[in-house]
């Protein structure tokens, strides 16, 4: 089944190994076949990957885009080890990310990494005592998440 994508003017999207930037008008198109697909709002860059959970998200994002685990294995587990040591209660979420990576399902791994970011904000918020989760700028994975757009 083809994946329907709509882009706002100037919005960017990664499909496979290329980045596509929309022109001045809204665009709607369908993607068939298998390739990593990441919308601009789901993408963290080195500037915005500025918290421990976001670093993990970023490493999974690299695995997804390049379709390779081993290249980013060491860095990923450095981040994971640091995180688990700091916040052991996050282990179930991290186990989920690991499991999805092991199954080769990077897109779902990214969604779990998104959960980790939310959990991190909850912990830091609780510690700050303000009870409000700090809004994460620049990332909000598709809510529906019914299917992995890569079809994998």
């Amino acid at each position, binding site marked *: 089944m083809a994946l329907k994508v709509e882009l706002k003017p100037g919005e960017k999207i990664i499909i496979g190994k290329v980045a596509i930037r929309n022109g001045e008008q809204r665009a709607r198109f369908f993607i068939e076949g298998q390739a990593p697909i990441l919308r601009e709002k789901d993408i963290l860059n080195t500037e915005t990957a*500025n918290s421990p959970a976001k670093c993990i998200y970023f490493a999974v*994002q690299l695995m997804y*885009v390049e379709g390779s685990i081993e290249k980013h294995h060491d860095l990923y587990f450095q981040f994971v080890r640091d995180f688990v040591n700091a916040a052991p209660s996050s*282990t179930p979420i991290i186990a989920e990310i690991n499991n999805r990576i*092991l199954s*080769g399902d990077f897109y779902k791994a990214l969604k779990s990494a998104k959960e980790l970011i939310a959990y991190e904000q909850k912990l*830091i918020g609780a510690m700050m005592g303000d009870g409000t989760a700090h809004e994460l700028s620049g990332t909000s994975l598709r809510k529906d998440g019914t299917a992995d757009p890569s079809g994998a």
Partner: protein
Amino acid sequence: MPGDIVLSRGIRTNLLSLQDHSRNLEISQERLATGKRVNSALDNPLNYFQADGLRQRGKDLSNLLDQMGIAVETLKITGKAIEGLQKLAESASGILKNAASTTDNTIRNQARTSFEEIKNQMNQLVADAGFNGRNMLNGGVAGAYDSRYDLRVSFNETLTTQLDVKAINLRATLAGNPPIAAGSTAAQVVTPVAPDALAPTGFPPRAVATDYDSGALGDATIQRDLAYLQSYVSSIRGAASNFGINLTVLQNRQQFTKDSVLTLNVGADGLVLADQNEEGAKLLALQTRQQLSTQALSLANQADQAVLRLFN
């Protein structure tokens, strides 16, 4: 009863507090001994069961690791055997070429015998290429892939992802071919053989070591056997790269799984100490440390090589 000791309220309170102390002491000693703050479901039910669940997942993954370990060993032994086969095939090739360049029947007959011996060594090597009862080079028909001998390795706890490594039969049947009948020419017999379909089986081994005798027939036989060797070697090369790639994939997965198990166990041990405020503070400290560390730099480096650099 006259022997009863009556405790005053003050003493009773002291006694209760002493009993408390001694219970606390026991708990501390147990925690010191085990290194865990929560040792039973009664200490902190939620954390206890969650930690227990994580350890169980760790055990499941460890079981997969055992299988992966066996598979890795199997592929390593297979790879070594293939290396050996390649060397033997090369030396057989050398001997045949040497025989082809002489008309001395003694040398030619010696070559014929050596070739038969090398073939036997190759088959012995193939037969010995097994590990833990599995041989990926010896099942089914010579020269053919046979899925019954494939190696299947699971990658996750739910067994939904796996790697199938194809088995191939590399028994050498090269010298089992009948002598070339009079009247046929070398050109007819030296047909290229597809790497996947090596020389067919079923020919009786030749008992007489005179097939290579000088003359047109001997020359044609040598040329034919050389051609078979050539296709055998190319078949081996295909198999070697197939097994090699799968070994790399498997070793990478093995390392990832090992690190996952470690994470689960570290997490389970830490979970019993979990305190949200403390975790929040530690995460903030970690954030600062990471931003000052070389990890941020590695992250940027790896991103630079990917399409993601376009989003920086």
